[in-house]
């Protein structure tokens, strides 16, 4: 036990946790963006991520395209996939009950998962494009795939955040999230903004999928673990709050890393839900959530 309290070991856990948490943050921010703008909980979000993973795997195994080269291309493909999905399917359930949005997106998740099984079988795939490790101060070891995945995830999340804060369309997305009817009378085409929002969310999921493919093995059935954790993260961070989902994701990554280090990796898998219960007991609206009137 004593050697676990060594500052180097603790730093190792923290760095590993933040890098893993960055991937959660990217995924959860995308999920929360859609929830914030249209009050739809997209249970197919992890399947969109896996679509990104399988595209990466196809491009890597067929054409030897490096995942980092494929990343922008895959994000564009996922953007238009999400844009179209909003247009033909999700737009119909905006403004209806949360139950119908859960049913429709759960159905979508099942369809995507089974199409994945049909095309790719249930065998696990991996994209071993990066290898090796970095050594920080000669003592802290960071696997290069995990380091790159974490940094790219942070950069993508930060770029989307800046887009929402500074860009004309990004501000319109925030306006629609707050008051769609007032945004409408400002001349904002709310339906189009929702398509862009879902596209953006899908592109973020796709980017997470590219990163996932480099660090984990995955199959069409990998989705549920991730969507449940993301769901926990956005509740922990505050529903609809971008920064909340970001810090919630990082927090979960760090807590999982410490749990795995101090207790066991089995416990780490369940810690998201324990964290959820604790935070909801202390702050029922999540870390950054507001009380509902």
């Amino acid at each position, binding site marked *: 036990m004593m050697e676990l309290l060594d500052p180097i070991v603790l730093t190792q856990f923290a760095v590993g946790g933040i890098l893993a948490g960055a991937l959660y943050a990217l995924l959860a921010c995308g999920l929360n963006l859609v929830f914030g703008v249209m009050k739809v909980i997209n249970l197919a979000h992890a399947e969109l991520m896996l679509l990104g993973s399988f595209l990466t795997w196809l491009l890597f195994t067929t054409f030897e395209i490096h995942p980092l080269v494929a990343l922008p291309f895959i994000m564009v493909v996922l953007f238009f996939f999400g844009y179209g999905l909003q247009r033909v399917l999700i737009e119909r359930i905006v403004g209806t009950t949360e139950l119908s949005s859960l049913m429709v997106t759960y159905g979508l998740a099942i369809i995507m998962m089974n199409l994945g099984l049909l095309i790719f079988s249930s065998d696990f795939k991996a994209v071993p494009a990066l290898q090796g490790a970095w050594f920080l101060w000669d003592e802290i070891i960071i696997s290069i795939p995990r380091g790159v995945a974490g940094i790219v995830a942070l950069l993508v999340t930060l770029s989307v955040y800046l887009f929402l804060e500074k860009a004309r369309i990004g*501000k319109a997305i*925030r306006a629609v999230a*707050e008051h769609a009817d007032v945004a*409408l*009378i*400002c*001349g904002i085409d709310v339906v189009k903004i929702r398509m862009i929002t879902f596209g953006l969310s899908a592109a973020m999921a796709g980017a997470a999928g590219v990163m996932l493919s480099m660090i984990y093995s995955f199959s069409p059935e990998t989705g549920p673990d991730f969507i449940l954790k993301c769901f926990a993260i956005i509740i922990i961070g505050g529903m609809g709050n971008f920064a909340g989902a970001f810090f919630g994701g990082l927090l979960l990554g760090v807590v999982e890393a410490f749990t795995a280090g101090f207790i066991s990796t089995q416990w780490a898998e369940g810690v998201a839900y324990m964290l959820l219960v604790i935070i909801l007991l202390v702050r029922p609206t999540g870390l950054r959530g507001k009380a509902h009137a």
Partner: protein
Amino acid sequence: MSGNNSKLLKIRALDVSYGSVQVLFGIDLDVTPGEIVSIIGPNGAGKSTVIKAVIGIAPAQRGSIHFKGREITRQPAHEIPALGIGYVPQGRIVFAEMTVTENLEMGAFLLKDGKRVRDAVDRVFSEFPRLHERRKQNAGRLSGGEQQMLAIGRALMLDPELVILDEPSLGLSPKYVDIIFEKLMGLKEQGRTLLMVEQNAARALSVSDHAYALELGKNRFSDTGQALLNNTDVRKMYLGGA
């Protein structure tokens, strides 16, 4: 020229229903350029529904709405601002988690040229210096009166000919009611045309060139503001006796 063509806004025989509940029955209404026109009436008379039909967020079943001679009945709401109509929603709804400046920018969403947006923001700031002082704050932190100024400023961003206001004085302190009505007079002096729904009927009539009193979704009285103010029936029905 016929009188009809000189109208900025012309509503004829307008019916509006929400589901199976009909709210408006054959409403007629004219707005002449440069005037302040008010719609008064008790709760449930359908006042707000008239202006919501104009800006495309309430469904017009029958009848017509013309703006500057062009039919805009059932025009999608997001296409209305480009025509020259600004709208101030009831309850001074602002984007609470966006800054004052960002709220104004949303009012000029249709302008893609950042320079023109900044010019419009500066123009509104010069009209509402208080908003300039608080430009970096989130709109949710403003007082009720300041939020109403912001909602009006946002509606002015595209320099509209017609400004439509839904209950501009509702829920404001007496001091801000005075300030807001002063602002509305100021807008008229700039040559803008105003159409407003107002529960403070006496106050609204006193500034209106023309006014319409509705009852249960139908036209009941229409005349100059002063004439309605002096009409004994109107006083009894809409101004609480006296």
